[in-house]
């Protein structure tokens, strides 16, 4: 019998793993290209689209206003708006994106203003349509300027200074460093992605090394060799764990590159800080995320192997493991919800705890007690899952299910 049986099994599984084209996709290509495409690609696309939308001069229509030439002239003077002649189907025109908005001047608006009677100007628009909201912003700006002018004139007529309207100023100022701000904005997303990709990376090899062996008929071959079941399970488990960690490592690396590219894009396009996504992944944060991902990857690897072993085929294993994705996604998404903070109780809920702690790490906050608690509790869950995997490998009814 071999002394280094775990290593022998691991080396063999590794050789087969790297020769599998599907591995390349799930472990290397997805994490390497997912982030650049999602983050840089989509953000750049969004920035370009928003820029183009802002450059457009929105067409608007004025409803009424025949007896209020001043306000109509004011709107017509705005260079960033194109006033088109009135048509009775203006609602359809907005819905069909022929015009971006319509502004309704009530009858007797000018006269009411002069008498000091309140009137309401209505703006009609297409909710959720970006170009329509840009049109609304410009109309509103023009009307507010006009209103301010009217107020100033009224105050001047009564010899009241305009400062009476603003007895004091309010000014907001961010004191948190930019990396903390960006961490708080997108940090939760990092934890979520690490959790999800850790599982995605473990899923395919977990199926391949258990149900795949049964389907191909190699399970009986390996069970007839003198390796102990424990060593066999550990050898296989280490490969699944390597795949999970490789996926997580590649995804973190890819994230770092994506954020750097995004930063460069924002700076070069003059958007800089305004984009709010200048995330920095320092070596300390990367190491801490890895430390937290490790027991979680152990947990995923062992659980996925245990479940997949019950299946007779690849297809059956996939149908068992797909619901697992939802079980993992739900706590990971919960960590993204506003107001969900790491508490001693939540530190015991697997997946959610790791997602939350990653979020904190991304903002540069290290609650060492919580980190230790989460690490130890996830290790304990992982240990139980690994023990279950070993026990399942000893069950004849599972190994030879027909």
């Amino acid at each position, binding site marked *: *019998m071999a002394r280094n049986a775990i290593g*022998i099994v691991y080396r063999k599984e590794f050789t087969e793993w790297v020769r599998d084209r599907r591995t390349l996709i799930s472990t290397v290509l997805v994490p390497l290209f997912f982030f650049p495409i999602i983050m840089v690609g989509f953000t750049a696309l969004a920035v370009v689209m928003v820029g183009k939308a802002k450059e457009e001069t929105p067409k608007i229509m004025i409803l009424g206003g025949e007896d209020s030439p001043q306000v109509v002239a004011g709107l017509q003077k705005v260079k960033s708006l194109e006033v088109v002649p009135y048509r009775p189907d203006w609602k359809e025109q907005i819905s069909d994106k022929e015009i971006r908005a319509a502004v309704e001047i009530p009858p007797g608006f000018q006269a009411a203003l002069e008498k000091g009677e309140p009137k309401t100007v209505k703006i009609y628009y297409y909710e959720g349509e970006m170009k329509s909201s840009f049109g609304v912003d410009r109309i509103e700006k023009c009307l507010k300027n006009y209103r301010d002018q009217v107020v100033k004139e009224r105050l001047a007529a009564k010899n009241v200074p305009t400062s009476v309207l603003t007895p004091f100023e309010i000014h907001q100022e961010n004191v948190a460093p930019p990396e903390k701000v960006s961490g708080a904005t997108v940090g939760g997303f990092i934890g979520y992605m690490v959790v999800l990709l850790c599982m995605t990376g473990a899923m395919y090899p977990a199926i391949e090394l258990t149900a795949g062996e049964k389907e191909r008929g*190699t399970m009986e*071959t390996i069970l*007839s*060799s*003198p390796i102990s079941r424990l060593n066999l399970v550990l050898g296989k488990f280490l490969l699944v764990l390597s795949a999970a960690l490789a996926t997580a490592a590649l995804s973190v690396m890819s994230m770092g590159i994506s954020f750097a590219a995004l930063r460069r894009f924002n700076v070069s396009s003059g958007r800089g800080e305004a984009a709010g996504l200048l995330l920095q992944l320092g070596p300390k944060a990367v190491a801490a995320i890895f430390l937290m991902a490790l027991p979680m990857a152990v947990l995923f690897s062992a659980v996925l192997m245990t479940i997949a072993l019950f299946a007779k085929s690849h297809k059956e294993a996939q149908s068992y493991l797909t619901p697992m994705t939802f079980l993992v996604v739900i706590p990971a998404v919960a960590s993204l919800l506003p107001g969900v903070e790491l508490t001693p109780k939540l530190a015991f809920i697997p997946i959610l705890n790791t997602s939350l702690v990653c979020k904190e790490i991304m903002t540069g906050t290290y609650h060492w007690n919580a980190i230790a608690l989460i690490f130890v509790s996830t290790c304990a869950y992982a240990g139980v899952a690994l023990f279950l995997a070993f026990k399942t490998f000893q069950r*004849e009814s599972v190994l030879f299910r027909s």
Partner: protein
Amino acid sequence: MIEARGLSKRFRDKKRAQIRALDGVSFRCEPGRIYGLLGANGAGKTTTLRILATILEPSDGTAVICGHDVVEEPEKVRAKVGFLSTATALYPRLTAQELVEYFGRLNGLDENTLKKRIDEIFARLHMDGFRERRCDKLSTGMKQKTSIARTLVHDPPVMIFDEPTLGLDIMTARTITAFIRECRDRGKTVIFSTHIMSEVEKLCDVIGIIHDGKLLTEGTLAQLREKYGEQDLEEIFVKIVTPLQAGAEA
């Protein structure tokens, strides 16, 4: 040497009912002889051989192989056994040589011994032409040769064959039967299960007829012919099994 002592195996089916797959099976296989386990599908042949290969654990009874108990020392037993069946497939993404090396290493062979053994086996089985080819690219015959090389790499004294020719073409089946004979000639203890009468007649020194989990009779072909008054093994088999089947159906 194989000695089965009252082997029994019970399984549970999907409705949690208990199925007795094996019921107190005892026999002995001596070195340099082929023991043929003959039975219909579902008779208990595969269960018996899987227990001997320690892939399954017996519910009752035990077996001793080369002085090691299958229940107490399963890993030591597996180190003495070469197990081959149509269900023992190959790893598709390993080459023929890598596959044999893998099993050699699991059997604790050092690199020098392993290399010598592989060169010797590959030459004997005419496998040098495809040693670097991946298993998923091999023909059925090449796959069978690779499986044989896998079972032989650690030179086990006991060989267990579970219906090794099932579904194979004549030429590949002949390679297997020639290999089984060669194992006997090299002094190995060989146990072989099949439901093909002609294979048993050609190969086996001792025949055991198994039905419904019980070993009904055993002996050399000559002894069985004399005992049941029939020359043809198929007739002997039918004569033994039919009354039991009729009883079970009644």
